[in-house]
C-alpha cells in the first residue's frame, strides 16, 4: 500500500498504566495501518487492549497520572501524540471521531438530541446556530431516525437503545471525519437492531468515504462488514489479513483457536475451547504471549515473535511460520 492510501498509521504504540501493584502493559507494541474508506476490524477478547489502543489514538488517555503512552499515531502524516490538548479538541469530531458501546453514556441526558448533535458543527465550523441545528436534523434523517424534526427535540432517555446508537453515529459523522473508531458499537443491542446498525455503518462508509476501525469481539460481525481484520492478544497484534483470507486461512494458532471455539449453526461437532486463559498484563510471559495456551508451542516460542508478512497482505506473529524453513 502506498502512503497516500493510508489515512491512519499506528507505529509501535505502547500504553502502560502505573498501579500500586506494578505496571500494567495494556498495549505493547501495536502497529496498524488504516486505509482510506476501509473498514478494519480490531478483534480480541476482553482485556486484550483493543479499547485502550483506540483511546490512546484519540488521546483520551495518555495525559493522566500513571498513564504512559509512547509510539506514533499518524493521522494523514501528522503525529497525534505530539499535539496539544487544544489541537486535539479541534481534531476530534472533525477529522477523527469515536463511538462507544453504551450509547446512553455518550449522550448528555439534559440536552435534546438535536442540540447536542448541533454542537459538533458549531464547535468546528463557522455556522449559525440555526444552520447547525438544521444539519443535526439532516444527520438524524441520514442515520434513519423516523420523523427526525420531531425526534431532534427529544431527550436521550426517550430513545430506544438502537435509536440512541444511531444518534451517536449521527453526532460522530456530522462533520464528515476521515476516521471513525467504533468501539463495540452493537454489543449492547439485539441482533435485529445490530443488523440495522451494521448496515448503516456500511452505507455511511460508502456515502461519506469514512474509514472505520470497528472494535469487536464478535467474529460474525467482522465477517459481515470488515475489509481487513487485525487480531489482538495480550496487548499486541498477532495476525492481520483481508477478512476473506483470515477466515479461510488463519495462520496464528490463537486465530485458529478463536474460529474453532465458535458454535456454528448447522454444525454440532464438539466445540474446541482454547484451554487456559489470557496472561496477566502485569506479568506478561517472556516471548510469545500465547505460548502458554498454544498447542503448537516449541522451544523458539520463548523469544518474542515479530509480526511478519506470511502471504500477500497477510501478517502473523508466530514462529511456526519459520519452523520448516
Amino acid at each position, binding site marked *: 500500500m502506498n502512503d497516500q492510501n493510508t489515512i491512519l498509521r499506528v507505529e509501535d504504540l505502547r500504553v502502560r498504566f502505573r498501579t500500586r501493584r506494578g505496571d500494567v502493559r495494556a498495549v505493547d507494541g501495536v502497529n496498524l495501518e488504516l486505509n482510506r474508506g476501509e473498514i478494519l476490524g480490531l478483534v480480541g477478547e476482553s482485556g486484550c487492549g483493543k479499547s485502550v489502543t483506540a483511546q490512546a489514538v484519540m488521546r483520551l488517555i495518555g495525559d493522566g497520572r500513571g498513564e504512559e503512552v509512547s509510539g506514533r499515531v499518524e493521522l494523514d502524516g501528522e503525529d497525534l501524540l505530539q499535539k496539544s490538548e487544544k489541537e486535539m479538541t479541534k481534531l476530534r469530531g472533525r477529522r477523527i471521531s469515536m463511538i462507544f458501546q453504551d450509547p446512553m453514556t455518550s449522550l448528555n441526558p439534559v440536552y435534546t438530541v438535536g442540540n447536542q448533535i448541533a454542537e459538533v458543527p458549531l464547535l468546528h465550523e463557522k455556522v449559525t446556530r440555526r444552520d447547525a441545528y438544521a444539519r443535526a436534523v439532516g444527520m438524524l434523517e441520514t442515520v434513519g431516525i423516523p420523523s427526525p424534526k420531531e425526534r431532534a427535540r427529544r431527550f436521550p432517555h426517550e430513545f430506544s437503545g438502537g435509536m440512541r446508537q444511531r444518534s451517536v453515529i449521527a453526532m460522530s459523522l456530522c462533520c464528515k471525519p476521515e476516521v471513525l473508531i467504533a468501539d463495540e458499537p452493537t454489543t449492547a443491542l439485539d441482533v*435485529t437492531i445490530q443488523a440495522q446498525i451494521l448496515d448503516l455503518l456500511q452505507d455511511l462508509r460508502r456515502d461519506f468515504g469514512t474509514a472505520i476501525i470497528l472494535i469487536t469481539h464478535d467474529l460474525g460481525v467482522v*465477517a*459481515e462488514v470488515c475489509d481487513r481484520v487485525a487480531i489482538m492478544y495480550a496487548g499486541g497484534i498477532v495476525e492481520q489479513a483481508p477478512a476473506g483470507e483470515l477466515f479461510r486461512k488463519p495462520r496464528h494458532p490463537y486465530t485458529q483457536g*478463536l474460529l474453532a471455539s*465458535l*458454535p456454528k*449453526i448447522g454444525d454440532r461437532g464438539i466445540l474446541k475451547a482454547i484451554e487456559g486463559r489470557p496472561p496477566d498484563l502485569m506479568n506478561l510471559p517472556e516471548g510469545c504471549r500465547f505460548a502458554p495456551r498454544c498447542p503448537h508451542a516449541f522451544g523458539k516460542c520463548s523469544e518474542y515473535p515479530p509480526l511478519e508478512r506470511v502471504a500477500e497482505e497477510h501478517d502473523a506473529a508466530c514462529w511456526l511460520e519459520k519452523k520448516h524453513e
Partner: protein
Amino acid sequence: MSSDRLFEVRNLKKYFRVGGGISAGRRRFLKAVDDVGFDIVRGETLGIVGESGCGKSTLGRTMIRLLEPTGGRVLFEGRDLASVSDRDLKPLRRRFQMIFQDPHSSLNPRMSVRRILEEPMVTHRVPRADRRKKVRELLDAVGMPADAAHRYPHEFSGGQRQRIGIARALALNPDFIIADEPVAALDVSIQAQIINLMMDLQKEFNLTYLLIAHDLSVVEYVSDRVGVMYLGKLVELTDRDTLYREPLHPYTQTLLKAIPVPDPERSRERVTLKGEVPDPVHPPAGCRFHTRCPFAEERCRREEPAFREVGPGHHAACHFAEKFARADA
C-alpha cells in the same frame, strides 16, 4: 409417554403493574409472559430465544415460582406449582436450580467458595459431613482444583466463577436447571469451555435444561428443541433442526438471517427488520409482530394468530405459517 414430561406449562401469564400509582383507572400492565404453553421432556434441553424484553427470563423465573404467576398452570411431574403452598414448595425447590448470566453479581463476594457451595445444602439440611464431601465432588465435577474451596470469588476469572455458579446449582442434585444467559458475559474461547462443561454435566447427572439466551448459535448448539419468544408470546416451537432449516414464523426467519455468521464468503441475503420492538405495555393489536413483519396482511392487524401445531411437533403462531412452509420447501 406422559411420565416423560417433566414440566407442562399451560396458559402461563405474568403481568407486571406499571405506573398509575393507586388510582386503578390509570393502571397499566406489562404483559411480560402472556398465555404461553409448552412441555419439557425429561433429559432434554429446551432453548428459549428472543430479544431483550421479550419475556424469556420472566418465563423461566415464573415457571419455578421465583415470580408468582398471574395466571395459568405449571405442572411439575403432574403437580401444579402455581397452587402449591410455600411449605410444600420447599422440598420441590431443591429439584430445580438456576445458573445466572453474570458470575460477578451472582456469587457473594464475602463468602468463600466452600460456603457458597454449602449454602443450598445448609438450607435443605444436608448433614455437615456430607456437605464437605459434596463440595469436593462438585469442584471436581466442574473442573476446579480442590483448593478453590477456601478461596473467594474475586480470586477467579469470569469463566471460573461461572464454573462455581454451576457447581452451586448442582449442589442439591437437581433434576432441572434453568440457565439464564450462562455464557453471554464470557469471552468466546471461555464460552466454549462452559458450553462443553454444561453438556458433559447433563449426561453425567441426567439433567434437564431450560436454556435462555439471545445468541441463536449457542442455543442451536446445545438445545434439542427451541422456542422463540416475541413480546411475551411464544411464536414458534419445534425441534432444533427443523427450526433452523425450515422456520415457519416470519420473526424466526428474520432473526436467523440477522445473525452475523463468521464466514465472509456466505452469500449475503440479509433481510433487515424494519423498526424496533414495540412498547410491551402497548403491544400492537392482532399479531404482535405485524408492525415489523414483511408479509403482514389485513388479517394480521385484526386477528391474533393462535399458537397451533403446523407440522409434527412444530408449533407456530402465524396465520400464514403453511404458506411459508411451501415457499421454503
